[in-house]
């Protein structure tokens, strides 16, 4: 019974598709998969906007939105309606085509990066041999659309915001790749379902997730920092911070195009937290061995929502980093530490399994973290500010 419930979507799709003549069946199956993704994630996006505003409210000792619908559940519908009915103002000498193309390219590329995420047992849309590389290739394309948005609205603030956003996304993409390469080194394959399969077994009741190994925890930490920076969220949301340069690269956007940017940002959050969950927290595998009867896709979406709550938690807590602090932090702490994590993963890979490799790796990572942390403090780049103006 549990197996059928676990594979319910696959069986449902096969049942739907078998009405068609066999020639069209694979295409129809793929189409249904795409429709599934395009329906589920914008729905989750609507839920997350509400979750975010209520969560932030509760953190600041106030209720979140509770006017529209019971407990504010219809708030996303209200926001969506507002975004759709707002007038879509395009600046006079803006570059019409690029101004329209930027949000579309961003949303399309982010949606394409969902193709490789395994959302359940056998539930990845495309089982690519180089799935992780495809994911990052799509991530790289979003930077270009950010720049197109910034440049095509021909407004000084949006160009500034776009340049800052692109610089930030590029400098945090390198550590993100490096930390996921560590996982590939251990899992032995770039294909995400194989990565999940490598983590999907248990000793006693505890799973073999990579986040519980020393190198995995270090890599997960760096991946989390890079993911938050890659989606321009919370402590790293300088490019679109309201108090900074108005709204950065989407200053000149309004109405539907602005809603598309908003959707793209949240889908980017889902994609990256989905990838983080797949790489480090065992994708769709159950947290304890006695819980495996619960369907696999429930675990994937539960972990993704947990990651989204961490995003929101960070947003409710941390002040915004300045551009020079942000870039220094990327190149002088996150990147070196990711390289070190890669080295430690190599040790882990080639040391015989046993307590020695646990000790060796943990000691190296801990000492490096403390030493580099203090060094970063001493350089006054990352620590509390002692200078009046950024030189």
């Amino acid at each position, binding site marked *: 019974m549990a197996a059928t419930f676990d594979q319910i979507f696959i069986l449902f799709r096969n049942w739907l598709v078998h009405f068609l003549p066999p020639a069209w069946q694979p295409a129809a199956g793929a189409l249904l998969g795409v429709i599934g993704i395009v329906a589920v994630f914008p729905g989750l996006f609507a839920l997350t906007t509400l979750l975010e505003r209520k969560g932030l409210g509760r953190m600041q000792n106030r209720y979140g939105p509770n006017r529209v619908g019971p407990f504010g559940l219809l708030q996303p519908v209200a926001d969506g309606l507002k975004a759709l009915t707002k007038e879509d103002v395009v600046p006079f000498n803006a570059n019409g085509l690029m101004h329209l193309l930027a949000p579309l390219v961003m949303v399309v590329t982010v949606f394409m990066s969902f193709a490789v995420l395994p959302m359940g047992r056998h539930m990845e849309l495309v089982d690519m*041999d*180089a799935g992780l590389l495809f994911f990052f290739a799509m991530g790289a*394309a979003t930077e270009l659309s950010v720049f197109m948005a910034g*440049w095509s609205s021909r407004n000084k603030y949006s160009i500034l915001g776009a340049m800052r956003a692109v610089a930030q996304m*590029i400098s945090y993409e390198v550590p993100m790749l490096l930390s996921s390469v560590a996982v590939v080194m251990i899992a032995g*394959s770039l294909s995400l379902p194989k990565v999940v399969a490598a983590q999907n077994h248990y000793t006693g009741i505890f799973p073999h997730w990579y986040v519980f190994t020393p190198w995995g925890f270090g890599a997960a930490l760096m991946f989390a920092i890079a993911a938050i920076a890659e989606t321009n969220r919370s402590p790293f949301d300088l490019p679109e911070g309201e108090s900074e340069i108005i709204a950065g690269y989407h200053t000149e956007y309004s109405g539907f195009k602005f809603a598309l940017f908003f959707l793209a940002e949240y889908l980017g959050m889902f994609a990256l937290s989905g990838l983080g969950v797949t790489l480090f927290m065992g994708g769709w595998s159950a947290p304890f061995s006695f819980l495996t009867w619960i369907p696999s896709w429930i675990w994937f979406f539960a972990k993704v929502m947990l990651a989204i709550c961490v995003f929101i938690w960070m947003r409710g807590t941390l002040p915004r980093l300045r551009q020079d602090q942000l870039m220094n932090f990327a190149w002088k702490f996150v990147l070196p530490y990711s390289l070190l994590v890669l080295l430690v993963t190599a040790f882990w890979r080639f040391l015989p399994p046993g307590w020695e490799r646990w000790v060796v790796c943990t000691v190296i990572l801990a000492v490096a973290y403390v030493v580099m942390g203090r060094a970063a403090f001493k350089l006054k780049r990352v620590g509390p500010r002692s200078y009046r103006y950024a030189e």
Partner: protein
Amino acid sequence: MSIPFYLISALTIAGAVAAMTLKNTLHCALALTIALAGIAFLFLGLDAQFVGFAQILVYIGAVAILVVFAVLLTRSGESLLPAKRARTWLAGLAIAAVTFLVLGWSVLASLYGLPNETAAPSVTMQQIGNALMGPYVFPLEVVAVLLTAATVGAVIVAMHEKARNK
């Protein structure tokens, strides 16, 4: 004779021509991106998955944006260049046409000798990894050193004048 091949190659060539002929330098940079994306799809058409994604990641993800940054930093985005073409532009075009004729002729002349239909080789990442670590480990290290040198070199070359000769 497959339709997608013609579509993609038409897109690529259109992007390349646009990249070379547009007046505004920034439009050229974006046309270059379209051409690079087209080439990436051609690689995927040739079942070279790894190279296709690497192409997207490296070229569209980094090089195209680098070009765009350069265009903005040297402020050649706004000012339309007075004379679009170099003084010796006619000679340039002639040379390009001649090279294309020679290459085209050589391809067409040897067309019958080229193998047309072969089974698509299934290349797994495992094989690429082993090849990179096996016979090609030396070039890999050389490229690593080269990339580091290039990064450091580019930073020093482009570093702010005042900071450099301090």
